[in-house]
């Protein structure tokens, strides 16, 4: 099968953010990660061309997907493979739209990105298989893609076992029992001790094992943290008001109190009037200082960490938690108090 590979400006080797505005272009044969994908596909399938586009152009220009698909068709594609885009938002959205437009143009199409990439929702009716979180998992992600491509080429259906993500296609079929009967059957099974039976599996968020308690707060180094979007006024680190892609750290060592007008919450999920009127409503520094003064807290960690918990993916949130724990551990912090909005 003749495959055209779609990648962004970075994976095409053009450059980073400074090249994000470039329009769609085409190169013969495989480029960048496409070379590895091409070798994984063996002799049966071949990447005949690579089409690429800057992330800004691809994700923000209405006509981008159509322009990209025109280049893909020009290159003689029977199938389009877009990505892997990992958790990159604009790249994922571009891959999703390109796959959808290619599918609608009568080509076979597959996008590759992390299950929580917002681009997954853009890809339907084309299919998406899951990549890892970051380019560190490129090898494994390309392997998943190569196996999915071989299956599609053979006319087989992809399933969750192949890494298929996104909304499951709904296939109508007749079952013996009606919904009311099945619901009562499931309720009876639950009452009978069956905790597994379901028609709609819920996402699994895993288990967080509680840390050991500290012996004595009056001898401990304690950190205060928040996901309430509290930043110095003007938001110098440009923390997002929703779907945060990062966390930031700001000094507390020489800060006695969080003065009104020196700090603001940029959280986009609630009215920040109360927080801006008194930033201690988000980060309780004033009373933490009192408790240090009185000896109830040993010492207060000299920075606070902040992100915005508003539409942030579980995967990103879990990553920030891991990074925060590692940083605090390294600094000898024994307990952390995180305010959640």
């Amino acid at each position, binding site marked *: 099968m003749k495959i055209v590979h779609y990648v962004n400006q970075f994976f095409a080797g053009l450059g980073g953010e400074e090249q994000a505005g470039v329009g769609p272009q085409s190169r013969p044969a495989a480029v960048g990660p496409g070379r590895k994908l091409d070798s994984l596909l063996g002799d049966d399938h071949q990447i005949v061309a690579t089409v690429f586009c800057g992330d800004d152009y691809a994700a923000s220009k209405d006509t981008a997907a159509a322009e990209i698909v025109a280049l893909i068709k020009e290159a003689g594609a029977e199938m389009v493979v877009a990505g892997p885009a990992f958790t990159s938002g604009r790249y994922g959205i571009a891959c999703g739209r390109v796959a959808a437009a290619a599918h609608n143009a009568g080509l076979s199409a597959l996008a590759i990105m992390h299950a929580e990439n917002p681009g997954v929702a853009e890809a339907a009716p084309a299919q998406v298989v899951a990549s890892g979180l970051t380019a560190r998992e490129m090898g494994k992600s390309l392997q998943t893609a190569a196996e999915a491509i071989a299956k599609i080429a053979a006319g087989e259906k992809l399933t969750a076992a192949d890494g298929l993500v996104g909304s499951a296609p709904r296939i109508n079929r007749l079952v013996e029992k009606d919904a009311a009967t099945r619901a009562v059957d499931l309720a009876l099974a639950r009452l009978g001790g069956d905790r597994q039976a379901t028609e709609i599996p819920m996402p699994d*968020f895993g288990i*967080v094992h*509680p840390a*050991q*308690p500290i012996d004595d707060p009056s001898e401990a180094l*304690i950190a205060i943290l928040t996901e309430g979007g509290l930043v110095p006024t003007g938001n110098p680190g440009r923390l997002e008001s929703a779907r945060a892609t990062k966390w930031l750290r700001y000094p507390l060592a020489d800060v006695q109190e969080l003065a009104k007008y020196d700090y603001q919450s940029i959280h986009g999920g*609630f009215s920040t009037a109360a927080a801006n009127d008194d930033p201690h409503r988000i980060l*309780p520094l004033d009373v933490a200082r009192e408790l240090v003064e009185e000896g109830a807290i040993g010492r207060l960690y000299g920075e606070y960490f902040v992100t915005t918990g508003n539409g942030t993916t579980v995967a990103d949130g879990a990553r920030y938690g891991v990074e925060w724990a590692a940083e605090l551990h390294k600094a000898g912090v024994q307990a952390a108090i995180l305010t959640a909005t």
Partner: protein
Amino acid sequence: MGAPRVVPTRGIPYPAGDPTLRPEEEKAWRRLLLETALKAVSTTVHKPTVFTPATI
């Protein structure tokens, strides 16, 4: 979402405050929340556990 130690507070926009209180009352409430949190991190738990602050 499985946070092991949780102190419930009074509203999403002000997890460490309560703007309906007078300033000195609000600070006392914030202090009570932090004291409750200190109790929580000093207590062994085996699953997500709620530590309710004594109301003032």
